[in-house]
């Protein structure tokens, strides 16, 4: 630590050393907040439980009404029958044939997402759970896959291995399995150095582990870096590509231009820096879009638009090195309580070689953005 760093440190410590909160009041507020949060959670649980119980209670009557028999004979008791009768119609679940792949330009991963699993992201930490199970840190038994930067696996019991050709180690710790893999950092991520990422699969109990093991296996075996060490993009074959904050329509093929566009749109949703993905011309064009644009009066009513999601519809080659990508960006109007009404803005993004705002010459940057159709109002369920 240099001299001026020590001085700065001392100044920082001095500035807050005398600052103490009103501890008693703060604790009282924590108690109030905690109780309120737990009441709210319990109320939700109660409502769900009551609904389930109501359905369960009503089901025999409903079945009885549908299948009522006035012959006067008692129905045989099949409640202990271990197998359905051969004549009984068994509802066959419709297999979900739609396969999605998740693409993450920051963690530099792509993998197949089992049908009906949900993805959540918070500060570089991705959490994936089956539909219907609680998403940590929500309370309750669950099965979950998680990913984040760094090596978070336990130090004990490590087994050296390789994963997709890159050095890795695995750890089995009870009902948690870890893979820590040291593969290339995303060339788009300015805050990520080359270094390991941790991926782990976890279940609260054996039954959940057994139930969702095939889902874990699907994700584990399909896990691969989006960009390899040469910056080449993996072949992502999927009916639909899911990203941190948006989707890509079926049939749109992954390439570096699309990855840059996904990164740009994800950053817009999070209001992160655009420095690695936007050129100076692109920035000027972007500033003319909502919610920055000068056309406020001509626009629809919202005054507090904030981007919430997007859907990339197509990618077309403009010339040998450049692409035009069309997407719908959706905005929420925070000035109203109506979260079901979104505002769509149809945009074309021009992607090609150029110098990004962080003064790096790149194969792909966003060089322009333009609206190609008026805004629309979208009502979602």
């Amino acid at each position, binding site marked *: 630590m240099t001299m001026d760093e020590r001085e700065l440190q001392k100044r920082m410590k001095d500035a807050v*050393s005398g600052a103490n*909160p*009103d501890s008693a009041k703060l604790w009282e507020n924590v108690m109030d907040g905690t109780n309120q949060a*737990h009441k709210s959670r319990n109320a939700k649980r109660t409502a769900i439980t009551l609904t389930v119980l109501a359905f369960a209670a009503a089901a025999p009557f409903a079945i009885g009404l549908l299948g009522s028999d006035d012959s006067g004979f008692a129905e045989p008791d099949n409640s202990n029958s271990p197998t359905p009768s051969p004549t009984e119609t068994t509802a066959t679940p419709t297999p979900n044939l739609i396969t999605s792949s998740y693409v993450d330009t920051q963690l530099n991963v792509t993998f197949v997402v089992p049908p009906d699993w949900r993805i959540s992201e918070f500060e570089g930490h991705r959490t994936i759970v089956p539909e219907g199970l609680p998403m940590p840190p929500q309370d309750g038994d669950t099965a979950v896959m998680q990913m984040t930067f760094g090596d978070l696996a336990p130090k004990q019991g490590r087994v050296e291995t390789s994963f997709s050709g890159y050095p890795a180690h695995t750890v089995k710790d009870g009902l948690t399995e870890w893979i820590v893999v040291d593969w290339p950092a995303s060339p788009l991520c300015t805050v990520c150095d080359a270094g390991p990422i941790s991926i782990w699969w976890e279940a609260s109990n054996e039954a959940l582990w057994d139930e969702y093991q095939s889902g874990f296996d699907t994700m584990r075996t399909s896990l691969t870096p989006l960009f390899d060490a040469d910056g080449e993009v993996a072949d992502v074959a999927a009916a639909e590509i899911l990203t941190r904050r948006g989707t890509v329509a079926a049939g749109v093929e992954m390439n570096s231009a699309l990855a840059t566009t996904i990164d740009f749109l994800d950053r817009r949703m999070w209001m992160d820096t655009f420095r690695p993905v936007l050129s100076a011309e692109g920035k000027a064009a972007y500033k003319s879009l909502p919610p920055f644009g000068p056309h406020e009066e001509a626009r629809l009513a919202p005054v507090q638009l904030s981007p919430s999601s997007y859907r990339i519809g197509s990618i077309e080659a403009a010339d040998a090195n450049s692409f035009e990508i069309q997407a719908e960006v959706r905005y929420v109007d925070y000035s109203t309580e109506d979260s079901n009404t979104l505002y769509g803005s149809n945009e074309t993004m021009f992607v090609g070689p150029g110098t990004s705002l962080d003064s790096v010459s790149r194969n792909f940057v966003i060089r322009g953005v333009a609206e190609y159709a008026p805004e629309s109002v979208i009502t979602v369920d």
Partner: protein
Amino acid sequence: MSSVNADTVVFPPIKERSLANPRTDLATWFQQEHVALYRLALLLTGQRAQAEDLVQDTFVRLSLAGARPEREGIATYARRTLVNLHRSRLRRWYRERRAVERLSGRDQTTSPPVEPADPALFDALRHLPRMQRAAVALRFLEDRSIEETATILGVSSGAVKTHTHRGLASLRDRLGTDTDQGT
């Protein structure tokens, strides 16, 4: 605002049923961490009221987090939660500011008030990007190692070094200028 010495406050036990996980001991965590978290929040926000709100919400989140804080370490988990909550609030604040700009038709450059203690330092911190501010506060106020800071912020060690380096350079520039003006 009255200040109470944390060592003299008697914390009532939490009713066990109000906790998501009975193993957690929120009162103990509060006693151990709340002053340090408050000071960290003060450097991040520059305002006492916001700092108290952040600390309060951090402990409420901890109470809902099940066994995860214990597994990851309470100090790390609490700081990560606090930094994340601060980020969410910043985002909300930017949204509100943009809305006001659109409604009023003029640039809203009004800054949030800074603390009276060393206002130049707080003002310089406030001008740092969020990650730089958090990295500098964790490294220099809390003496956290690069690895610890990286875990808390959810970024790589290299990113922590970069954020800290840039943050310090900006602070030097601003504070140097302020000193020159002051003299």
